């Protein structure tokens, strides 16, 4: 009982938009597509919905082949980055529009619209037009339109990207509650790793038209299969460096060396790529096995409770994310401490080995 994509590809001319992809999205699940702009999130969503047809491969829904079935025949709804509503309909009529097309009775329409408006806190503005609403309210209307018809598949394509910070936070908190208890398969595309982590559910990381990993969000984050997944699923970007393991030491940075630590102890001697998430690099000493990173401070960003420090280390940039305020002067030499036990190690092929 799920939506299955089996060896889906999408090509246009010589351009490959989607490399062979297979995914199984269970009913009632919340799935995040995480990737940068142009990584293929929107294309993949449109293929799931039937707005675009795959070049090859099969799409099955509840065991039935729905490849090539047009979107109108599939019970799908979609929310976009732009706030898409019918401009000369009231909020009420906008929410009711998919139900009217479906030919529902007036009483039933009214009941459902009221329920959806209640969930999205739109009741006071049911009579207004989209142009009289704030951006957040416009997007709430679009979301209400998407949930009102009990779709099997609800697709949200970066729905919060055009909202300002405060509204984004607010709606982000409410979204999972809206979909909880429904049987719909929800797919949510975003460029922000933090959104994926907040929503939980499953996450598929996309990189250049390839799904690099798909699984429960927490485990995709903690145990990425390869370097690309780790890079897509890290914000600020994960720090990487070529290292050579020799005995119980790690050689890096032209002559520097670190103790191997727990993660590397299992590895055979040889060359690897080391990956360290920014919050595992700190200006304060770390409790476990520690490696030192020395370099020139490029940027320090201080938020109320966190510091982000960009360090130029022998030509490559390292980023540290730590609690508290650590005002380092730009241009000064600084020493950061890497939590080597938490490091990820990737083989030259990109596969994670430890």
């Amino acid at each position, binding site marked *: 009982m799920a939506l299955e994509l089996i060896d889906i590809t999408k090509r246009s001319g010589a351009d490959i938009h989607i490399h062979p992809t297979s995914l199984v999205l269970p009913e009632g699940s919340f799935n995040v597509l995480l990737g940068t702009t142009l990584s293929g999130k929107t294309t993949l969503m449109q293929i799931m919905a039937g707005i675009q047809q795959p070049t090859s491969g099969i799409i099955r829904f509840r065991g039935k082949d729905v490849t090539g079935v047009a979107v109108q025949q599939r019970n*799908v*709804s*979609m929310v*976009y980055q732009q706030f898409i509503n019918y401009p000369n309909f009231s909020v009420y009529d906008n929410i009711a*529009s998919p139900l009217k097309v479906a030919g529902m009775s007036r009483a039933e329409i009214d009941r459902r619209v009221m329920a959806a408006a209640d969930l999205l806190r739109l009741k006071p503005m049911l009579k207004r037009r989209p142009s009289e609403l704030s951006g957040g309210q416009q997007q709430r209307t679009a979301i209400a339109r998407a949930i009102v018809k009990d779709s099997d598949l609800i697709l949200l394509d970066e729905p919060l990207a055009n909202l300002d910070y405060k509204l984004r936070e607010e709606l982000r908190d409410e979204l999972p509650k809206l979909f909880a208890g429904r049987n719909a398969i929800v797919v949510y595309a975003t460029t922000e790793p933090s959104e994926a982590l907040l929503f939980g559910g499953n996450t598929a990381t996309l990189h250049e038209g390839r799904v690099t990993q798909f699984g429960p969000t927490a485990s995709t984050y903690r145990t990425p299969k390869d370097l690309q997944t780790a890079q897509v699923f890290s914000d600020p970007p994960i720090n990487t460096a070529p290292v050579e393991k020799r005995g119980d030491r790690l050689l890096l940075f032209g002559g520097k060396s670190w103790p191997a630590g727990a993660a590397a102890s299992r590895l055979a001697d040889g060359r690897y790529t080391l990956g360290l998430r920014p919050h595992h690099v700190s200006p304060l000493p770390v409790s476990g096995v520690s490696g030192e990173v020395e370099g020139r401070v490029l940027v320090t960003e201080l938020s109320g409770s966190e510091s982000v420090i960009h360090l130029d280390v022998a030509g490559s940039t390292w980023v540290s994310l730590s609690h508290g305020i650590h005002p380092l002067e730009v241009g000064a030499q600084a020493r950061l401490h890497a939590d080597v036990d938490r490091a990820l190690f990737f083989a030259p092929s990109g596969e994670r080995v430890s």
Partner: protein
Amino acid sequence: MTKIENNRAWWLVLPVFLMVAFNALLPLMTVVNYSVQETFGNNEFFWSGTTWFQQLLHDDQFHDSLKRQIVFTAVILAIEIPLGLAIALCMPRSGRWVSVCLVLLALPLLVPWNVVGSMWNIMALPDIGLLGKGLNALGIPYNYTRQPISAWFTVVLMDVWHWTSLVVLLCYAGLVAIPDAYYQAAKVDGAKPWAVFRYIQLPKLKHVLTIAILLRFMDSFMIYTEVIVLTGGGPGSTTKFLSIDLVQKALGGFDLGPAAAFSIVYFLIILFLSWLFYTLMMREEAK
């Protein structure tokens, strides 16, 4: 301190004020001046009050050309706006044909107005013109210098040829500005093409269409050059529109007073109708 800054601000506004004064206010005031005076030459003027206005309002010739003008403008708006919108809807949204279409459409707009008149004049000649001879060869009696119907047909056709492109270009710009996601959302909803037009494209084009209607209304209400070159207002005075009537009064009869009164009434009619159109079309918005 604030006072000094205020004085400086006046200097900054001055150029605009002077331009508007020379462009609009001074000529308008001259006309107002003429409209309330009588002259017999020798630069002698006598106060005549509202005589010219009263005369104009009871002038049958003025009434006839005003009626003709309203019918003409109504006809060309009824043709050009839907036709322009329809052509814009049929145009490709991307690809190399876009620029081909745009250039072809822009061509009539680039032709000088008197040349448009001459072109259609020659085209419509019953003995040698492509249009005139063609229609007669098909057995349709056509002679725009003799039959009022032929003359009207030619004038309307000429205006449609000349100005529909403007409506197309405006509508096309409006259509291209609608994000793709709207069409996709309509598709997901299962909306029919008519519904997409009625509930997405038309509302989104509202402002553009308002501008198009206003521009075409004002321009067609003031039409002069093309018609004077094509028919000269004839046969008889069947295509004598307001501006032709005005020029004949002012230059032909040299009746400065009545012509000035005519100009002011003409100006007020256009101003009033433009305001009316605009308010009517924008009222929806306010509701």
